[in-house]
């Protein structure tokens, strides 16, 4: 009888140990991140279509509470024409004064994402986008695709209005640059290990 009890206690202890161990490990995998995300923007104006790509966007998602942040360097946007890139940095976005653009937001219902089984989830994301030193609220939907537990792709599209971020376009190039810019986001997240 006494022996049985001891065995029970021992099993309990093992269970607690395993539970604690697993809990400890789980907290390690609750953040997903990337430093090589893609953000592309498109300006469609009567005289000219302009697009620029940034392949070094950083982002972290806290899979527990849905916190999501993005950070990118304005000067890392690549244009087809070098002059456009220079004007974008020097005249419009003033990247010497405002080198970064950031987004801080929350994914709604992030708990519905199950990292264990492959699948796609369409979730609402809202937060605050800072460009050119100006911050505005942004709401969009983001599509999360789980390939396996170590790989999650996220894509989204939304539109920003240049005037909201105090980006001024001179009259002379009004026909070349659109007042609203389509932004496409394409990120490949992996577990954050540190």
């Amino acid at each position, binding site marked *: 009888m006494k022996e049985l009890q001891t065995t029970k206690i021992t099993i309990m202890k093992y269970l607690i140990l395993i539970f604690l161990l697993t809990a400890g490990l789980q907290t390690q995998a609750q953040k997903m991140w990337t430093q090589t995300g893609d953000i592309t923007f498109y300006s469609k104006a009567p005289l000219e279509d302009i697009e620029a790509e940034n392949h070094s966007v950083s982002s972290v998602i806290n899979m*527990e509470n849905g916190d999501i942040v993005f950070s990118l360097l304005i000067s890392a946007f690549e244009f087809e024409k070098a*002059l456009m890139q220079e004007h974008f940095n020097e*005249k419009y976005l003033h*990247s010497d004064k405002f080198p970064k653009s950031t987004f801080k937001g929350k994914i709604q219902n992030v708990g519905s994402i199950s990292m264990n089984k492959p699948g796609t989830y369409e979730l609402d994301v809202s937060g605050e986008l800072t460009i050119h030193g100006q911050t505005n609220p942004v709401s969009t939907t983001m599509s999360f695709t789980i390939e396996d537990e170590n790989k999650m792709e996220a894509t989204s599209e939304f539109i920003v209005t240049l005037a909201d971020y105090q980006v001024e376009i001179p009259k002379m190039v009004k026909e070349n640059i659109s007042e609203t810019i389509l932004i496409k986001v394409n990120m490949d997240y992996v577990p954050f290990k540190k």
Partner: protein
Amino acid sequence: MSRLRNKLYLLISLLFLTFSLQSFGQEDEEEEDLLSMLESEQEPITNFTIATFKSTRLVSGHSVETVAEGEFMFIIGHRFGELNSGWRDLFGLDNATIRLGGDFGITDAIDVGIGRSSFQKTYDGFVKAKVLRQKSGAESFPITLTAMSNIYLRGDEWENPDRENYQTSRMVFSTSAMFARKVNDGLSIQLTPMMVHRNIVPTPEDENMVFLGSLGTSIKMSGSSRINAEYFYLPDGQIVSQLGGQDLRNAFSLGFDIETGGHVFQLHMTNSKGMTEKFLATETVGEWGAGDIYFGFNVNRNFNIKKKKK
């Protein structure tokens, strides 16, 4: 024995509990600033200074800027005659000289160019390379240095066709080292030591190799316009003979840049008739005070010859 084991288990359990609690605690702090956590992971950035000058030319002389890789910049340079040439020539409008030229970017740091001036029917060619770039941030450097080598070939008739003339006598060479600094968003300055070698000179007292310097500045008026000035200083004693009966003077030019997308319009007032270093440095005879001022403009248009790789 069993007690010892029990204690051991308790100890290990406590240890793990503490660890997991610790990691939970850390998480709480991190949640508050996921962004600063992310940014602490990023590499420190180096900002290369861009747009020290609007164009590859300050006014008439070169600036440290080069044309980007795969781009071709077509330059139409135009100088009317002297403002003081009177109403019969409509204050210089009748006697225009022109230079047509093109610069092509081999890499983002190296470009080459050719041009032809109607003045003295001169062909010119150059190679220009950005050796050092001004930058700030993780790595910093205070100036941009661009080196340039030019060659000029006169195409007009020989002054003395009766004597034996050599083709090499038509040639002039110049070499410059351009040091520039974008002091702040609104002000850039450039200092350029230069040497010009002329294969033929009028008298034995004139030096073939001439050393001089130029000083330039650019002041930003708005995002799309700038005021530029440049001054070429030729130390005395190197060129003693007159040119067309006039003493040599230092070239001083004022320019105004207006930029529209792919074009830069540059409006100029200068006492130099020519539009390249050879003329500016060693063949300027106009005098500002006497009204020998040439009004002129450059139209620069960029073309993308080679698309950037995606």
